[in-house]
């Protein structure tokens, strides 16, 4: 039996049902297995959480530490430390963070920025 003859056995609604099944499988695969998009940026100063910024809308945030003011910048889907008074600027040079669980730590000024998604990539972290 040829392939075309098999196709004749499909009625219009069958295409609909099979299409819906394929689409729902792909959707389930993407949501359950796809990359985890971060949803919030958590800003901590001196070990305390000072802000939880949504990654949906652009925003900027200032946080005071022992050395001065650290500027946090948020854009849809990503966040960075825009400026920091620390001497070595490691957290600024890290640039944009866009993966869930990613963190930029400005140790001298005791400020950290971390992205959170639906699930945490790590149970705990120590530095």
């Amino acid at each position, binding site marked *: *039996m040829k392939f075309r003859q*098999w196709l004749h*056995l*499909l*009625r*219009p*609604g*069958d295409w*609909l*049902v*099979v299409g819906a*099944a*394929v689409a*729902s*499988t792909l959707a*389930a*695969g993407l949501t*359950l*297995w796809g990359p985890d998009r971060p949803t919030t940026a958590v800003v901590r100063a001196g070990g305390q959480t000072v802000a939880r910024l949504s990654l949906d809308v652009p925003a900027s945030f200032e946080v005071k530490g022992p050395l001065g003011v650290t500027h946090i910048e948020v854009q849809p889907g990503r966040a960075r430390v825009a400026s920091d008074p620390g001497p070595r600027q490691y957290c600024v040079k890290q640039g944009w963070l866009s993966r869930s669980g990613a963190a930029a730590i400005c140790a001298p000024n005791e400020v950290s920025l971390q992205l959170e998604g639906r699930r945490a990539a790590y149970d705990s972290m120590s530095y």
Partner: protein
Amino acid sequence: MADTLIRADASDHRVARYAAAAIALSVAEAAIPTPLPGVKPGLANIVVLLVLLRHGWSEAAWVALLRVFATSLLLGQLFAPGFFLSLTGTLMTLVLLACAVRLPRRWFGPVSLSVLAAFAHIGGQMLLARLWLVPHAGLWALWPVFSATATVFGTVNGLITARLLHGASGVARDASAPDKETSD
């Protein structure tokens, strides 16, 4: 004291024949190695669909349930977790088929019924597994595998069913008319 004699009528013989075919397919299928319990072709569903479309829902229900019990018995799985998964899947399938068989036949053929049945089956199994066997939300991470399995084997089984109906009743169009089969 009058003896009551229970005679098997034509419908009983039919159910027995179809159930035997379904059981044979299930047992043969159990020999196929699978990476995940639940990922299998479900060939017995072809028989259930054939019975549904030829002889109606109640005979299909008989065949499906006899298949679950007899296959579990043969494989030594009766009342084991696998049996309850199979039973839940089959019950969900039968409930769904009772509704789906009312869809306009012109538009929705055996393939639709087969795919919907496959999803009902795997959905019922997942639900029972989630509630009873693996009470953890992490179980849903397996869903895309089952969903893909249901899509592929649902379509293939549906096409085979459509083909068998096509071949059996010369005029293929009206496979829905019950009791067209002559005694054989």
